[in-house]
């Protein structure tokens, strides 16, 4: 059985032809720097080995769209401090489980007996609250606009049902300020963007218009299969060749130009923008993160509990910020592969499987021919 809407976009013959078109379009005299904003795209690029298929003068730079990577360590510490209470059930997506706080990761706390549980959906956390009325369920929410509407709707359901032992620790962030921070960065030289496909199912394509209009960079909203990404590169190269800069939607089978109104309504009902929020590696960015509105205060972890508000500064040697902004490649960070590995991550880019450092480490850096042949006994 093929997986519909997946396998067609992995057709080897069509992939080969699309790569030929890329080679035809790429001007050998130019060095292209194209940033894929979204961590899911970073993961897909490595998982499908797409870099092998691109011409050498086309460089893909990994952007900051990894919600785990940009989460300040202090927020994890805050969440885990609350989890120490034996009446609290700490829930989070699998992605969070190995992220280290200063006192260890959620998984390490779980091994010591703290009630930490992985959920696939915020509704699963709400279900736990219904099933455990004497416990207080805390949902550690992360994600960009793809995920925020689901948290919003879950909070609306909690309120409608009067479930009082459920709260959300909200770390949702928004993508546009992150892109602005990249373009404002003086060290950056970028030709174009591959835009986040799933965030755009919610926010639509309009929010990116300033990138084309004011910053004169083409941006193509892309899907996540190999052909989606490769077709997006074709579309970007065509724009660059013609000297155009526009927002284009490659992922039309899923992304509506106007976005998802119901999702945006849910977000507006439950969330408001924080005046500023700290992004790990990028510093404080204004109007870039969501917090829960007053009407939902009874379900806001930061109102229901005393949240310590721990602030943790990253070790100076870790160059996460520069790698996040695409200024440095993972291998160029002094700690990469030495003090900082997926097993012992120093920075969050090494913990999340879509963080550029982890993705590069896990999928790529051992490909180079190495002289490490171990002499085996004959």
């Amino acid at each position: 059985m093929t997986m519909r809407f997946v396998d067609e976009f992995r057709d080897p013959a069509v992939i080969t032809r699309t790569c030929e078109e890329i080679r035809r379009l790429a001007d050998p005299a130019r060095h292209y720097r194209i940033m894929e904003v979204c961590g899911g795209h970073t993961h897909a690029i490595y998982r499908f080995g797409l870099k092998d298929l691109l011409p050498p003068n086309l460089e893909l730079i990994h952007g900051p769209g990894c919600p785990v990577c940009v989460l300040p360590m202090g927020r994890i510490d805050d969440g885990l401090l609350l989890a120490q209470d034996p009446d609290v059930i700490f829930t989070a997506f699998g992605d969070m489980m190995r992220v280290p706080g200063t006192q260890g990761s959620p998984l390490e706390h779980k091994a010591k007996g703290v009630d930490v549980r992985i959920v696939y959906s915020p509704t699963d956390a709400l279900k736990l609250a219904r099933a455990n009325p004497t416990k207080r369920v805390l949902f550690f929410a992360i994600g960009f606009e793809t995920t925020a509407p689901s948290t919003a709707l879950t909070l609306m359901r909690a309120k409608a049902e009067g479930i009082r032992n459920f709260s959300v620790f909200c770390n949702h962030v928004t993508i546009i300020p992150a892109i602005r921070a990249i373009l404002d960065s003086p060290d950056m030289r970028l030709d174009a963007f591959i835009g986040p496909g799933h965030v755009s199912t919610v926010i639509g394509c309009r929010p990116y218009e300033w990138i084309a209009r004011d910053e004169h960079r083409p941006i193509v909203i892309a899907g996540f299969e190999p052909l989606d990404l490769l077709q997006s590169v074709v579309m970007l190269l065509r724009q660059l060749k013609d000297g155009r800069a526009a927002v284009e939607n490659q992922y039309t089978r899923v992304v509506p130009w106007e976005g998802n109104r119901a999702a945006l309504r849910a977000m507006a009902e439950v969330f408001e923008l924080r005046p500023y929020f700290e992004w790990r590696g990028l510093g404080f960015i204004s109007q870039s993160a969501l917090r829960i509105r007053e009407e939902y205060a009874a379900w806001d972890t930061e109102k229901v509990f005393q949240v310590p508000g721990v602030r943790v500064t990253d070790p100076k040697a870790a160059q996460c910020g520069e790698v996040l902004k695409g200024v440095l490649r993972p291998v160029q960070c002094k700690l990469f592969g030495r003090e900082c590995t997926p097993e012992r991550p120093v920075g969050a880019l090494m913990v999340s499987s879509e963080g550029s450092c982890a993705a590069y480490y896990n999928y790529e850096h051992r490909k180079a021919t190495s002289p490490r042949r171990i002499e085996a006994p004959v």
Partner: protein
Amino acid sequence: MCLAIPGKIVELAPDMPHLGVVEVSGVRRRVDLGLLQDDMPRPGDWVLVHVGFAMSKISEQEAAEQMRMLRMLGEDAAAMDEIRGYSE
């Protein structure tokens, strides 16, 4: 932020209008349809699933059109090569 998978709606819960069951390659999961309340999917529709919520309906038409355009890429190129061949 980004892991979302196409799945087919196979069931709607009659007593809970915002819940459905989606099937992905034979695996079933209950899915919240609340984000698609402006244009509710029906059994047989394909949706994009992320953290237990349906985010968007998948347009079979757009998917087919995209594949058609992609397949044409090679044909255009082959035609161009042939034409170039005449003038050399």
